[in-house]
């Protein structure tokens, strides 16, 4: 099952990338995530591993994921190493007006789980989709709010000078 959400963020692509690629910031904008911990020595980049959990229905579901694509500042993809099968991707594109188009995709399932797995994937889809939508909106809000504060600070500094 694959679900996705997107948003247009009024900020440069590098700034958006700095948010989505930082494991310490994930908990502040990703909805439903209860754990996103670095596992191992590598914090970011290709091969970085994280122990993640999402609250989906009655359980916190996740496992160990590994970053398998790291194309700064446009593509960041991960796949599960342990736990429920899942793949995720941040896809960022610079827009002509200076903003950034952000898309978050997630694919998940349990191989070999038969018809119940098929049903569970569909039953979970609205929950996962809701989390992704909220994540996209929250990311947009956080980054744009930070932009506003940065601009205000710059204006105050200019006035003081």
């Amino acid at each position, binding site marked *: 099952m694959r679900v996705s959400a997107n948003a247009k963020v009024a900020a440069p692509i590098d700034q958006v990338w700095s948010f989505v690629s930082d494991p310490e910031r994930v908990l502040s904008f990703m909805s439903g995530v209860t754990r996103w911990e670095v596992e191992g020595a590598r914090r970011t980049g290709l091969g970085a591993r994280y122990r993640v959990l999402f609250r989906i*229905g*009655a*359980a*916190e579901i*996740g496992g160990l994921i590994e970053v398998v694509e790291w194309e700064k500042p446009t593509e960041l993809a991960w796949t599960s190493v342990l736990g429920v099968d899942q793949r995720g991707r941040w896809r960022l594109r610079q827009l002509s007006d200076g903003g950034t188009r952000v898309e978050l995709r997630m694919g998940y399932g349990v191989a070999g*789980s038969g018809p119940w797995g098929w049903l*569970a994937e569909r039953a979970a889809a609205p929950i996962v989709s809701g989390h992704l939508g909220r994540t996209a909106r929250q990311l947009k809000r956080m980054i744009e709010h930070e932009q506003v504060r940065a601009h205000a600070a710059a204006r105050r500094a200019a006035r003081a000078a």
Partner: protein
Amino acid sequence: MALTGVASAPSRNGRVGLGQDEAAQERPCGSLIARIASEFADRLQRRIPRGDLDERDPDFIRERLPLVWLVASIWFRGEVRGLGNIPDRGPVLLVGNHSGGNMTPDTILFTLAFSTFFGVERRFYQLAHNLVLAMPTLGYLRKFGTVAASPSNAREALETGAVLLIYPGGDYEVHRPSWLRNRIDFGGHKGFIRLALELGVPIVPVVAIGGQETALFVTRGERLARLLWLDRVLRLKALPISLAVPWGLNVGDMLGHIPLPAKLTIETLPAIDLRAEFGPDPNVDEIYDHLIRLMQETLDALASERRLPVLG
């Protein structure tokens, strides 16, 4: 599917638990009926598979998780809190209160939550009443990590570094009347504490609410069991009576029932390092009283969150 405390067989008072004598073994057979009963009971005992920890199958569990998730999320609207309190590594003794008659929905929910939180790779065993594992249709439980409740199985599981879930109240607690649903009652079983002390394993209390609202449990039926000679024939000291779907009046609950969709909430409390908290030579009774008090307070808090029975 009543999972129980560490025990090897139903005992004289219908309770099971580590530290109790093994069930009254042979009794004087004064009549033919008693002799037949004894033979039947022995055959039943032989059917009980020996605990084999290797029967647990992570792939089997992973493939069943979607079905369990559907049941736990949609039917029971389950919520499990505080799993982060369980130490990430090493053996842990999870001690829970037991509810829901032979269907024990809280065990289903907790197994799901544990397996998704820590991954099916982390070894996790549950102790179950011998009769549960002897039932031909419930053989799959062994693949989930359910092993017969006995002191040796409990010890073996913990010594291999696994996480072990036990219900010291066993079938005594699981069949308590519905109006006692919010009471922790381990029936005085303390053997698990001695085991945890001996092996130096932390105890993590697991408090569940909602399971005893999945049917209307009327009585444990201890007197009825005596009246019908079940204590002599089947070594059953209780014959629980409930009102349950689809049977209506449900005596014995041997065929199980369809649990009502009661909202289940489970709270996992911080781990207790017994020697750090109670000193180098702790008193078992003191630990027992502390655990009961702690779990009862948590259960009271969970009960105060509920507005309506079943709906939660």
